[in-house]
């Protein structure tokens, strides 16, 4: 375990954490404000990546693909909200889980139908290709730094939006007590649509940004969805601050766990069992963290509701 390797892995952890934050931010708001469990949120992330690939082949520039894919992701999200989700807001969590599971099945398969099951790829924009040397022995790809930077900028913008604008105030109020906000005369349906569209775009944005360094394939939304749920539950449902803290925690724990678990296990056991136990423990680590956090604080790190 050398210092350069540690720095690189910490950056990787940050990058994963910020990516998870982009996805979890929308999920936690939709969950917190509308009390709606949207399993189909991972699909929005996947669609973002696919749409970016599709629009890149049309426009030929990453920026063009980004703009068009964001718009298309928003349009698809709002269409889903209009056709299905808005009929589920008052319903049981179980109904929401099943219906959004159905949407995962549909869109996952539709993506295979349109683009095929084989993984696709998106080239890294020329300006950000290559790598920089952070210190002797630590080389880091520029695009990953771009993801980190854009994640931080988005997080700051989101914080400003939620903390200092009128709509942000309504969103916070909605997460604390949606019925009361509605009773005070706020058009809660419009608020729901804004929150939903916003969350959809953030997930799509995450998918677009990750597409150049990840293979774009039909199952990519599922893994990230589960991670995003771990993040929002650990952070406290409905809390942007909680999602940010938990996303970084989960991203770092997962990445560092995966890279150093075998080494750590070798301190306490023979190399051969360490090679088996290490990776298993590493995959489980974030779930252990979540179970531990929930055991100590059943409503997550930063509960949004003042109960």
């Amino acid at each position, binding site marked *: 375990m050398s210092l350069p390797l540690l720095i690189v892995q910490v950056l990787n952890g940050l990058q994963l954490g910020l990516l998870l934050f982009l996805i979890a931010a929308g999920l936690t708001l939709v969950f917190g404000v509308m009390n709606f469990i949207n399993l189909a949120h991972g699909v929005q992330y996947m669609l973002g990546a696919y749409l970016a690939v599709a629009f890149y082949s049309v426009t030929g520039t990453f920026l063009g693909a980004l703009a068009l894919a964001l718009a298309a992701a928003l349009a698809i999200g709002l269409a889903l909200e209009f056709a299905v989700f808005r009929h589920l807001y008052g*319903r049981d*969590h179980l109904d929401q889980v099943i219906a959004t599971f159905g949407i995962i*099945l549909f869109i996952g398969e539709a993506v295979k139908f349109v683009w095929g099951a084989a993984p696709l790829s998106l080239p890294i924009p020329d300006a950000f290709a290559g790598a920089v040397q952070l210190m002797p022995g630590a080389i880091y790809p520029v695009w990953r730094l771009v993801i980190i930077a854009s994640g931080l900028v988005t997080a700051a913008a989101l914080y400003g939006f939620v903390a200092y604008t009128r709509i942000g105030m309504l969103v916070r109020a909605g997460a604390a007590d949606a019925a009361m906000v509605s009773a005070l005369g706020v058009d809660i349906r419009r608020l729901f649509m804004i929150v939903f569209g916003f969350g959809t775009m953030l997930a799509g944005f995450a998918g677009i940004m990750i597409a150049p360094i990840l293979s774009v394939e039909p199952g990519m939304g599922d893994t990230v969805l589960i991670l995003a749920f771990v993040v929002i539950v650990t952070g406290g449902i409905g809390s942007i601050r909680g999602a940010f803290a938990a996303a970084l925690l989960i991203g770092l724990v997962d990445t560092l766990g995966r890279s150093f678990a075998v080494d750590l296990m070798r301190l306490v056991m023979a190399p051969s069992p360490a090679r*088996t136990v290490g990776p298993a423990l590493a995959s489980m680590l974030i779930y252990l963290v979540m179970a531990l956090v929930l055991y100590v604080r059943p409503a997550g790190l930063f509960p949004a509701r003042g109960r």
Partner: protein
Amino acid sequence: MRAFAGSLRKTRKLDLIPLLILTAFALVPAAARFGAEAHVIALVTRVMIFAIAALGLDLIVGYGGLISFGHAAFVGLGAYAVGILGVHGMTEGLVALVAGLVTAVLFALATGTVCLHSQGAYFIMITLAFGQMAYFTATSLAPYGGDDGLTIEARNTILGAPVLRSDGALYYAALACLATSYLACRALVRSRFGRVLRAARENPVRVATLGFDVFRFQLVAYAISGALGGLSGFLLANATNFVSPAYMSWQRSGELIIMVLLGGMGRLHGAIIGAAVFVLMEEWLSDLTEHWKMIFGPFLVLVVLFARGGLIGLGEHVVRSLRRG
């Protein structure tokens, strides 16, 4: 009083449906003689195996109000007991079954103790987390196939005799397990235990005030539900001669929830109907097109939006409106 008599009559009438379902299962092998026998037997065996797991899930989801999103883990534990013991040369079914059930119950007690501290959405997510832990443990079991899963050389023997070798025998074994599980669950939900469980779903605080330890009732229900999952896994491993981590994936857990909701939750035979509809639709649609999920997904959305109470609820609604004319 009239309402009470009405509900009595209703209970008696509804008992006819489970009886019909089980009879139909018993007659399938005879009817299958005229068609593609082996295929039909294997398919309906699969239906009954998932019906057992769905029954167990309905016990906690439908009656306990506890939405477990990690239930496939129990099925996986039952299946892995068969696979792992098989690798070590132990092919006795009763040993594998007991090992699977004990593992499933212990896992349920350990995880249930943590999960049941959380409510609502948090419960859903933490059961999901434990399901994922079981899944990743299975993928890391390198000596037992890891990611790729484990082929089981031969089906379990029962008391040394290879009675499960024939598909027909396995079919009736699965049917016997399903019927026993159904009757046991039915007795359970009608007992004092079941009433406390249902009451705790409606209002846990009030039940606690009456002097019941809600947590203990829920934990026992969770363990029973896990045991049924283990039983289902034992049969599944024997039916497919294969176990893999995919048995424990969160999608599998989602499918089990779908089965419960599809038939109509909170009525045990609903879980059986749901399992049958799910497995048969999957089979039929995937014959029709490779992209069957594009049809099944919207079907689920429609069921949730328009058929409250699942297919049974829909059926009752139709019957009621026909009667009214």
